[in-house]
């Protein structure tokens, strides 16, 4: 075998990550206590987004690995809600047998997120908690009117998924689960053919309530709630998107086209 010292011939990964401590939490309580003690903690779920934080110099002094916390991996129905644990991966969640019956369209939408390698490790909780406007978990969950359940030192905290993008959270908070109301038989359609420039999730339920979440790459997604009973033929008003990269006129045009397609796919026009 040819012996070559490859140092310098191939790129190395970022070794500039400063020393850090690691806690492999066994329970939500343990994770919270560590979060309380730490100065610059990072929660590690699937770890597919954290490197992006490191790459911009956001270094933690402690990593709190939550993979071993069993309760964060469950998917179940609790009364009239579909409950998804924060550490459920895209792959296991989107292929879960419960999904197609309780929320038609959700499985198809969730399956479109990322690629197989990312889907097998990346979690729904990590997707949401990255709090990036182009990440799709929160877009789908905002359309579905989901509630996020956090564990904090002062007890559970609930927040609408659509409020997370600009919400202030307590430092020691751990997303435990995502709770999606299913009593009114929600249906979902998701169009991402122009991602990341523009994506749109459209929800309607049996009561006639609807929500349209229109997302561009760099600004907080826009949520439009409507009621088909009072607006028999709803059409979304123009939005001043203010995306720094894509023009507002174009985005509104695309929004209207997607909306028409989605109305058709959901059997509403």
């Amino acid at each position, binding site marked *: 075998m040819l012996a070559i010292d*490859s140092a310098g011939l*191939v*790129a*190395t*990964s*970022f*070794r500039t*990550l*400063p*020393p*850090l*401590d*690691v806690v*492999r939490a066994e329970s939500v309580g343990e994770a919270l206590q560590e979060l309380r003690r730490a100065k610059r903690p990072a929660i*590690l779920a699937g*770890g*597919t987004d*954290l*490197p*992006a934080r490191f*790459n911009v110099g956001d270094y933690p002094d402690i*990593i709190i*690995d939550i*993979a071993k916390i069993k309760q964060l991996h469950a998917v179940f129905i609790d009364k009239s809600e579909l409950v998804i644990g924060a550490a459920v991966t895209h792959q296991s969640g989107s292929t879960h047998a419960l999904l197609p019956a309780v929320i038609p369209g959700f499985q198809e939408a969730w399956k479109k997120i990322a*690629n*197989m*390698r*990312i889907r*097998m*490790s990346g979690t729904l909780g990590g997707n949401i908690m990255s709090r990036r406007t182009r990440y799709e978990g929160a877009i789908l969950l905002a359309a579905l009117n989901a509630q996020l359940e956090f564990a904090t030192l002062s007890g559970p905290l609930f927040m609408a998924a659509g409020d997370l993008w600009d919400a202030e959270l307590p430092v020691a908070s751990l997303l435990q689960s995502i709770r999606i109301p299913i009593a009114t038989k929600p249906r979902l359609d998701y169009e991402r053919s122009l991602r990341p420039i523009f994506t749109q999730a459209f929800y309607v339920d049996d009561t006639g309530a609807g929500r349209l979440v229109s997302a561009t790459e760099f600004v907080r997604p826009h949520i439009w709630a409507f009621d088909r009973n009072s607006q028999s033929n709803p059409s979304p008003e123009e939005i001043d998107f203010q995306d720094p990269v894509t023009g507002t006129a174009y985005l509104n045009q695309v929004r209207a086209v997607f909306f028409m397609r989605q109305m058709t796919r959901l059997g509403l026009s």
Partner: protein
Amino acid sequence: MIPMEIDFILNGRAVTGKVSGNLLLADYLREHLDLKGAKIGCSRGACGSCTVLVNNIPIAACSYFAFQLDGKSVLTIEGLERDTTLHDLQQAFIEHAAFQCGYCTSGMILVLKAMLDHEPNPSRDTVVEWISSNICRCTGYAQIIAAAEAIIAMRANTGPTEAVS
């Protein structure tokens, strides 16, 4: 920062190692264990050239800490051949010229190995879906898909063979 002791299976052999919390799996494999098959490209989990299988799931070793291996099993490209006999996927890559520079190859082969373990008889769409996890800048993917399809066809006739003679 106290180094952590980890126990894991590396390419079929039990290993005990000491790692610091900030050591990435890619560096652990390449610099500490001298396994250079996992290549580093983007360091961001995007290109897949550093792919290894952890508990039979494709993982970007650049975005995975070495301590996370504790209690798990890792397969790198070096662990694929048996007694100097290539794995059938490696052989198919040669026969179908499924690489040029080779930088993506170990990752591509391991992604396909995971796919075949999860779905022994995948469709072409499934092959495309799985290899879309990784980037190849040389082949245009057609030869990689051809190599995968050849293995699928061969295994449909002969059953799974881990290595060719």
